[in-house]
Structure formats: C-alpha cells, structure tokens
C-alpha cells in the first residue's frame, strides 16, 4: 500500500493546533446542523442568541441598580451597613461557579470520556493524547461556563460599576473565572475516573440523571411554599449576613474573590499577591489534573472496574415462595402467563432503570406539594375580596370536599402519562421479542393496561388515604373517593394507552427522550378533558343534591353510576378503536 499520499503527523506538531482541530469539529457539526436545519429552527436559534444578549444587558442594568440600592442611606437604616456583603459578592459568585462547574462538568465529562464512544477512535488516530483531553475538558466546561458567565458577569460588572472599581477589575474578572472553570473541570475529570473505577459508567449516568432531575424539580416546586410578602427586616438582614460566611480566610476561592475586590479598589499589593496565588493554584491544579487524568485513562486504571457488587443468589438456588394452589389457579385463569410475563418484565424494567424512576417520582413530589398546600389551607376555598356570590362560595366549599380526590387523580393522570401513554414505546428496540411471540392483541393490550393501571391505582389510593386521614375525612367519603379513583383511572389508562398505540415510537436510546409526537400531546389533552368531564359526572350529582338539601349518599350513588359508566366505556372503546393497529406496530 502506498503510504506517501496518506496524511500523517508532522514531527513537532503543535499541541494547540490539534486542540483547535478537534474543537473546530464541534463547531463544524453545529454549523452543519444549523445550515441543514429548517428555517424555523434557524430563526429560533438566532432569536435565542438575541434573547441571551438582551438578557445579559438587562441583568447588568438590574445588578447595577440593585447594588447601588444596597448602598442607599434609607436601606442602611433598615438593614444596616451592606459593605461587607458587597465585598463578599465576588467570593460568593466564584464559589457558586466552582461548585456549579464541578457538578455539571462531572456529567458532561462522564459522557465525553466514557459514553460518547469516540474516545477509542480519537486515541487510535495520530493526535496527541493531551490534545484529546484538553478538548474533552473544554467541551465539558464551555456550555456551563457560558451559562455561568451569563449570570455572573452582569453581577460582577454591575458591582464594579456601582462601586466605582478601576478598569483592570473587568478583564481580571473574566480571567479569574476562566481559570477557576478550567481547574474545576480538571478536578472533575479525576472525580469521574475515580467513580467509574468503582461503578459502571452507564449506571453512574443513570443515578446522576435521577438525582439532577429530582433535585431540580424539588427546587423549582418548593418556591411555592415561600411567603415572600411577609419577609421581615430581621429575615432580610439574616439572609444578607449569610453571604460574608463564604469569605473564609483559608479558602482559595475567597483569595480569588478578595484579589478582585482589592485590585478593583486600588489595593495593588494585597490584590496582586492574592491574584498571583490564584493563578498559580488554578494553573497548577489544571496541569496536574490533566496529566493525571490522561495517565490514568491511558494505563487503563480508569477503565478497569473494581467490582463491589455482591453476587446475587441464582434464582434456581432460592427456595420457591409458597403460594396457595387455589390462588395460583385463580390468578392464572384471570391473568394468563403471557400477560403475567409482560407485567413482571415491565415492572422489573421500570424499577431498575433510574431514568424511568425520575419520571415516575416527579408526579409524586408534585402531589405531595399540592397535598401539603391543600392541608395548609384547611380545606377552605380562598376567600378573595369577599365579593363572590354566596351560591358560588357554597359550590366551591362543596367542591373543596373532593379536592383530595382531585389532587390524587392529578397525580394518577401524570403517572399514566408515562406508564400508559408510553406503555408500548418503552419497549424500544426490544419490541421484536413481543412481536415474534405468539401473543394476541387482546392479551398485549391487557398486559400493558395492567402495567399502567395497577401501580397507579395502588399509589393513588395510598396517597388519597394519607391525605384523607390527615384531613379527618369520614370513612364513607373516603370509600366514595376510592371508587371514583378506581373508575376514573381505568378510563384515563385506556385513553392514554390508545393514544400510546397510535403514536408508538420504538426508535430511542434514552427512555427520558421517548417522543410520542402529536399523538402524545393529543393523548395528554384528551385524558385531561376526560378527567374534567368524569369528575363533573361523579361529583356533580352529589353537589347538586347537597345544594338542594337532599341526602349526599343518593347524589354520590347517581354520580358513581354516571361517571362509572362513562369511565368504563372510555377505557373499553379507546382500546377497541386501536385494536387493529397493534399487530402492525414496529413495522414502520
């Protein structure tokens, strides 16, 4: 083979030339996607860019005004002197940037080093290994660094403008932030390798995804508990006094922050000294991490896993669980073995893949938060300005009796949006196993229905019982609520499953990214409308009878008849309508 024509490494080729080449590849991919993208997408990206710039400007002006406001004499009278707070702003921001980049680059580096699948290709190509690692680190920090700059630069520049810092402060802010980001990413790469040495990379990614999803969801929702209107002067002062606590004398991040403040205020000697220490520490840490990471990866230390998992006892060796013969016969007669098999398989898959669990836990958190708010309100409708007609308030009061059922059903609806709507799609590329098996449509639909319906029903019942016990609901009302939940969830599960069949998509890699297309949106909308209509059918008669002074039990019975018939019809006919489509699934 003639090798003269093939490209090869020039002796003494610059490391940075390769870093540039590899980094440029990302840009080329982005530019190519942008060029080939639809006009709508292009306009969207351009608008997003403009929005970010506008946001940056707005945040700068807002920070500047806020920081000036903190120095106003009236506020000083209310809160006390804020100068220690102001001088600790850079320390706080640098600390937050450090923690933020450490956490976010962990996931990105895990993806880039272990899951992206391009490391073997890159390492086998004539490119210096250091260039590959630098590029990977840059890839990991650039998106987050951009985000951190978006939030921190306006505040730090606003601080400089409001405090009248000298011009050198501004470029130094950018340099210090960049150096801290690089050093943090280096540290993060070592952390990734240490963790992957113990646990499989894919498992770590799943756990990380689960933790991030749940944490961010909890953080976004807990804001609803805050009562901002009643913040006292003491609470505000206490909140402000938290900031200087970051300014620890032994913390390198505090040295970095203080160097910026000192230089900004013209204390050149202390500022310069602290700045030199910061640069030395961050550059040193970055070089050390880079060299160690590439060594650990190349020697195979970071790829060979030290198994810590306890070997499971083989199933055949376990004693069989005794089950009464009559019960087993009854279960087998009602739920045939293919249906049982699919149910067990789906439950195992859902439980073991944490990417599914994050989707399933979200509705629960939502439900707990709303239940807490309901209990905190004492089950009374909001009084407003007291101008609402008495009849309306009476209806509202009667409706609030069933608010616990409403919240429980909302949790169920959200859960079914995952379990039923994606019941078929969650099979993914493994669907061939079901499709080649001798399982008819009715059994397949029954299995998928039960997989979605049973856990949702038991969970929602448990949820309803807990709220009802806390609220002191009567046993009769609780039993009525449980029957309503039983029937409405059946209708919702059937409806969602039917839309899930229509929009089934087996082509995905990550269960969090299963796309159901327009069928998914329509399914969610249709089941929400069904939920509203069926609630009206169940509760309407009971409320009307009570308004006219009749016995509630009669109204509830009528409601159960009307709503129950509608729910069961909805469950059956939705699935009946899509029965012809099931055998053809997975053939597109």
């Amino acid at each position, binding site marked *: 083979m003639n090798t003269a024509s093939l490209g090869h490494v020039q002796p003494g080729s610059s490391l940075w030339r390769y870093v540039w080449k590899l980094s440029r590849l990302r840009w080329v991919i982005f530019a190519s996607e942008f060029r080939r993208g639809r006009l709508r997408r292009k306009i969207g990206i351009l608008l997003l860019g403009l929005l970010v710039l506008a946001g940056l400007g707005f945040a700068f002006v807002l920070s500047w005004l806020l920081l000036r406001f903190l120095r106003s004499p009236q506020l000083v009278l209310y809160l006390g002197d804020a100068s220690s707070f102001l001088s600790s702003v850079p320390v706080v921001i640098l600390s937050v940037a450090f923690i933020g980049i450490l956490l976010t680059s962990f996931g990105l580096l895990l993806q880039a080093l272990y899951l992206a699948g391009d490391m073997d290709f890159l390492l086998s190509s004539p490119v210096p290994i250091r260039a590959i690692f630098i590029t990977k680190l840059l890839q990991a920090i650039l998106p987050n660094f951009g985000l951190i700059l978006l939030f921190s630069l306006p505040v730090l520049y606003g601080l400089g403008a409001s405090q009248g810092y000298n011009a050198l402060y501004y470029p130094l802010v950018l340099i210090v932030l960049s150096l801290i980001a690089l050093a943090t990413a280096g540290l993060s790469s070592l952390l990734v390798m240490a963790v992957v040495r113990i646990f499989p990379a894919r498992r770590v990614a799943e756990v990380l995804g689960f933790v991030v999803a749940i944490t961010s969801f909890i953080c976004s929702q807990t804001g609803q508990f805050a009562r901002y209107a009643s913040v006292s002067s003491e609470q505000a002062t206490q909140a402000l006094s938290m900031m200087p606590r970051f300014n620890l004398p032994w913390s390198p991040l505090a040295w970095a922050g203080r160097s910026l403040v000192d230089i900004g205020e013209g204390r050149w000697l202390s500022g310069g000294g602290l700045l030199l220490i910061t640069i030395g520490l961050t550059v040193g840490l970055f070089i050390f991490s880079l060299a160690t990471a590439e060594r650990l990866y190349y020697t195979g230390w970071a790829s060979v896993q030290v198994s810590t998992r306890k070997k*499971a*006892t*083989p199933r055949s060796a376990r004693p069989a669980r005794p089950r009464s013969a009559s019960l087993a016969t009854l279960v087998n007669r009602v739920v045939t073995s*293919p249906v049982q098999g699919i149910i067990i398989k789906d439950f*195992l898959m859902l439980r073991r893949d944490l990417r599914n669990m994050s989707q399933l836990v979200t509705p629960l958190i939502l439900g707990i938060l709303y239940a807490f708010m309901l209990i905190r309100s004492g089950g009374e409708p909001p009084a407003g300005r007291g101008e609402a007609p008495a009849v309306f308030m009476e209806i509202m009061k009667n409706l609030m009796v069933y608010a616990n059922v409403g919240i429980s059903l909302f949790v169920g609806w959200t859960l079914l949006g995952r379990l039923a709507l994606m019941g078929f799609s969650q099979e993914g*590329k493994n669907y061939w196993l*079901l499709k080649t098996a*001798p399982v008819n449509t009715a059994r397949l639909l029954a299995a998928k229905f039960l997989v979605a319906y049973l856990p949702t029903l038991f969970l929602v019942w448990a949820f309803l019982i807990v709220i009802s016990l806390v609220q002191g609901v009567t046993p009769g009302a609780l039993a009525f609520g449980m029957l309503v939940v039983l029937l409405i969830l059946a209708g919702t599960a059937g409806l969602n499953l039917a839309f899930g069949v229509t929009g089934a998509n087996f082509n995905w890699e990550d269960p969090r990214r299963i796309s159901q297309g327009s069928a998914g949106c329509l399914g969610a909308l249709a089941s929400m409308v069904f939920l509203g209509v069926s609630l009206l059918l169940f509760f309407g008669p009971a409320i009307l009878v009570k308004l006219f002074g009749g016995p509630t039990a009669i109204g509830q019975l009528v409601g159960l008849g009307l709503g129950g018939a509608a729910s069961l019809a909805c469950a059956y006919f939705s699935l009946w309508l899509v029965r012809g489509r099931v055998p053809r699934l997975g053939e597109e």
Partner: protein
Amino acid sequence: MNLSGNSVLIETNHLVKLFGDKVAVNDISFEVYAGEVFGFLGPNGAGKTTTIKMIAGLLLPTSGTVKVSGYDVQTQPLQAKAANGYVPDTPNLYPKLSGRELLRFVGDLYEMERKQVDRRIDELLRLFELEQAGDDPIDSYSHGMQQKAALACALIHDPKVLVLDEPTVGLDPRSARLIKDMLRQMAERGAAVFLSTHILEIAERMCDRIGIIDKGALIAVGSMEELRSLGKGETSLEDIFLNLTGGAEYAEITEVLR
C-alpha cells in the same frame, strides 16, 4: 441429502415487499423442509433481512404469503409464531433484565409450564456457558454473550422452525462451533433451520440447500451440487456466489488496494 419427501416447514409464495417505490423483495418463492438447514446468501442490501422479518412475522408482506409449519403468518400469526424461533442480526434485549429473567419472560410468552421453563433455562444457560452470568443484567454482557442469550430465547420453547439472521457474528470460534453443531442437531431432530450468513464457508459446510438473493430476487436455490451445475465450472461457493451476484466490483476494489 434428499429432503423433499419431508414436510415443508417454511414456505414463501410469490413474496413481495415494497418500501415506497423501492422493491426490497421481489416475487420470492421457496420451501424449507423438516430436517433441513437452509442457507440464505446475498450481498448487502439484497433483501435477506427483509425476507427473514416477513418469515418471523415482523414485517407485513406487500403481497404473497409466508407459511411457517403450515400456518399462514398473516392469517394465523399465533400458531405460526408458536412454531418459530427467531434470532435477529442485532440482539436487542431488555438491558435491565438478567439472562435468567429474560428467558423466564420468553417462556411465559410461549405459555410454557413453569417447571419446564426452569429446566430449559438451566439447560440453555449451561449449554451457552452463561451460568455464571445468568443473574447479571444483560447490559453487562458482551456482544457475544448477548448473541448467545438471543439464541437461548429462540430455543427455549424447542421450536420446529428456527430462523436466524447472521447467527455467528460476534461469536468466538468456540461459540460459533457450538452453534453450528447445535443447529445441525436440531435439523437432525426434524426441525427446519433457516439462516442468513455472509460467511460462505459456514454455508458450504453446514447447509443442505442454499438460496442466493440479489437485488430482491431469488436468483438460485439448490444443494451445492445443483448450484455448481448452474455455474461456469466453479467449484467453491465463493466463486459461484460472486459469479451469480456480479463479482466485477470486487476485482476493482482489489486493484485499488494493490
């Protein structure tokens, strides 16, 4: 070996599959008999996998019929599927199930007795040397182990018909030999084995009859002797295959690489 006296276990009749305007499979008819190993050969994109998917009931034919064990795959899909075992070219298996759980699940789908399933699981795990990994999740398996797990799934219900798409890809020589021996044994016990492969040596040594598909059409079917008589004096399957499917481009590639 003359098997034409045996019962027909796979029968395709004027099978056609169109994807839009593209003809993937064009009027294919053939039979595979009980006790026979039938090799299905063809260049990349010739329509092998599409044909196999129609036999396994994964794809609806545009026209024509497929019968497995005498049952029409379209009109009697459950009976046809119950007689069939299928191994795809890419073994996509539920990653979070263990090998043992996967086999138990497949046993349930085929409505097998619980005791029989347990016995078969132990046998198959031992046969494929997966005993140690039987309780590990499938996502920790190597490609070869996943391929063996997929084979075990296809065999758990002891099918009359076995359809395999590239069964030896990714297997070490020992496992590949095991599978070849096992397929032969199944045929000797009266099953019909239909396999596609790119390894002509396997087809030549293992298969009783060979079908060659090119551009969606079945261009030759027969035993090695019958195929030899079709060619221009070639003796090896490789020469026959290249002659029938057009080997000129291979010569060009060799010239470029020289």
